[in-house]
């Protein structure tokens, strides 16, 4: 089977002319998350981490794009693949790594770990779909304040019944809820075609919930596209489903990638990392190196810390 790898949508084949250079802060954040995730995989291989982890490799641009559309009073609910969501919300990589490693300075004393982080207005949970009713309640509480609840879910999440209970209530009660769907086409190892009948857009439409699909990989472009919609969620107090067509560049967890080489190549071809490296070599190479070295320092420092209070006998 021949698989043609299409150019990422929203760009010319060369990509250079239409794509404005990313702002340095965005590139720094993108690369911080990328190296954070790669470092986690490396620490696992080295036996420094226990349990499991889910990295957001390839999807980092989504929370980075959203980061500047969210305010301090907004509440973010994340999922099992949430390190990027957190780092785009809070510049606290030391605290997050300490949480994952159970070291001093951990966000939740090392009790929550990778998938159960509670910090200020950020809460993650690993059970698919169960964050959406909670997000609806948060949004109901925030209604009329101008703030919103933002919940990250995946395409696989749409198999869970709680999603529909929540969408129904969110629209019925007109709450400011932003549902961000990271549709990467695969639920752990099951492709969307094998687990979802119909489309996300139609499911949102069934509840009269607004839906918008994003295909761009460009942080600035996505922001421009979404800013008026997010403003509407706040001002009109209504839910919105934003569906990102994205790709998971890494495995679901670690070493459990069942995709064919062609499918993995397709996902890699959509990775913003190679694309930015190619289009903007100067700032990219420098910032990439700086962030890699920064995360290496973070990892070394956190690894050397004593166990968090909870971990001590």
């Amino acid at each position: 089977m021949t698989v043609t790898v299409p150019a990422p949508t929203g760009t010319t084949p060369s990509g250079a002319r239409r794509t404005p250079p990313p702002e340095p802060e965005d590139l720094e954040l993108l690369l911080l998350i990328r190296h954070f995730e790669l470092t986690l995989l490396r620490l696992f291989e080295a036996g420094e981490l226990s349990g499991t982890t889910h990295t957001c490799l390839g999807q980092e641009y989504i929370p980075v794009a959203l980061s500047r559309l969210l305010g301090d009073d907004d509440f973010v609910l994340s999922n099992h693949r949430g390190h990027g969501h957190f780092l785009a919300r809070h510049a606290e990589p030391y605290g997050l790594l300490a949480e994952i490693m159970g070291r001093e300075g951990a966000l939740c004393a090392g009790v929550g770990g990778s998938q159960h982080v509670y910090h200020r207005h950020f809460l993650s949970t690993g059970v698919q779909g169960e964050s959406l009713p909670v997000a609806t309640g948060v949004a109901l509480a925030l209604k009329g304040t101008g703030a919103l609840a933002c919940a990250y879910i995946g395409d696989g999440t749409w198999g869970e019944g709680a999603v529909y209970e929540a969408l129904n209530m969110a629209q019925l009660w007109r709450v400011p809820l932003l549902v961000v769907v990271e549709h990467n086409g695969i639920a752990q190892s099951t492709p969307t075609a094998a687990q979802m009948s119909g489309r996300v857009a139609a499911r949102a439409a069934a509840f009269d919930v607004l839906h918008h699909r994003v295909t761009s990989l460009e942080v600035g472009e996505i922001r421009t596209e979404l800013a008026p919609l997010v403003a509407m969620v706040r001002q009109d107090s209504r839910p919105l489903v934003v569906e990102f067509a994205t790709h998971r560049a890494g495995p679901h967890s670690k070493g459990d990638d069942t995709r064919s080489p062609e499918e993995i190549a397709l996902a890699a071809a959509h990775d913003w990392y190679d694309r930015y490296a190619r289009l903007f070599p100067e700032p990219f190479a420098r910032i990439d190196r700086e962030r890699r070295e920064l995360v290496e320092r973070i990892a070394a420092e956190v690894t050397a810390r004593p166990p968090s209070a909870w971990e001590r006998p």
Partner: protein
Amino acid sequence: MTTLTLAKALNEGMRKAMEDDPKVLVMGEDVGKLGGVFRVTDGLQKDFGEQRVIDTPLAESGIIGTAIGLALRGYRPVCEIQFDGFVFPAADQIITQLAKMPLRSLGKLKLPVVVRIPCGGGIGAVEHHSESPEAYFTHTAGLRVVACSNPADGYTMIQQAIRCEDPVIFFEPKRRYWEKADVDTSAPADDWTPFDRARVVRPGADVTLLAYGPMVRTCLEAAAAAEEDGRSVEVVDLRSLNPLDIDLVAESVARTGRCAVVHEAPVFSGFGAEIAARLTERCFYNLEAPVLRVGGPSTPYPPSRLEDHYLPDLDRVLDAVDRLFAF
């Protein structure tokens, strides 16, 4: 003193809590205009408005999840699960989210959510309107699980549950909703029995009956009947199942030397098993007989025409008392 039914006492307790704290919300299926199928929330929406007494869709996971979200932003939601059997669709939200979020954050995150569940049988209803699911929740770390048995406790315990910073599963014995008793609505909260304490509701010397919710009255009737046979039976209303007031329970059983635990739920892996184990650990040398359990068989709750065979009654409790003395 005011004479109130249990349903009305709970209603008055919630009303008082809503008057005291504007962050208290009531939500559930048909709790507004109808006032709930048992009328426990009767009149609350009329007096406090649709923003504070919220009629929800048929969505138990959505109800509890939404309540958690509201609690995250400072509200104190009181959720009504219409019937015991309807709590199971909410199990993930209760077990994985409500119970565990505060523990995962080492208490940094508080979730003052009350889940009210009319429980137990005896009203001639179907299986999913007659169940006793308390052991699922006592088994779950992070939840307070309580059961009221009478109007006076209904009035105070619902207020204590709402004031509590922890999530509370609040069982209400539905067949006792219409029973009346005197309630002192003017007693200051400092005089109330503390929320996590059991209470000796009838003192006795020879045997201890431990019960909660609907079975407390059954045990009181059994104790009165046993007295005619010259047996002095103490009845303890556990009130709080988790945490369990083991000190009071162990003191009573160490004194009487005989104990039966009585509940409607199936005996196998039921809450009585935990109490029997704890009493064996605490009172082994004081026991004159093994701790007995009186409860339902390990079957689904039967059709209503058979429920009298299923539910523990006076005779089954007295039979247990006989066996305790015969050992």
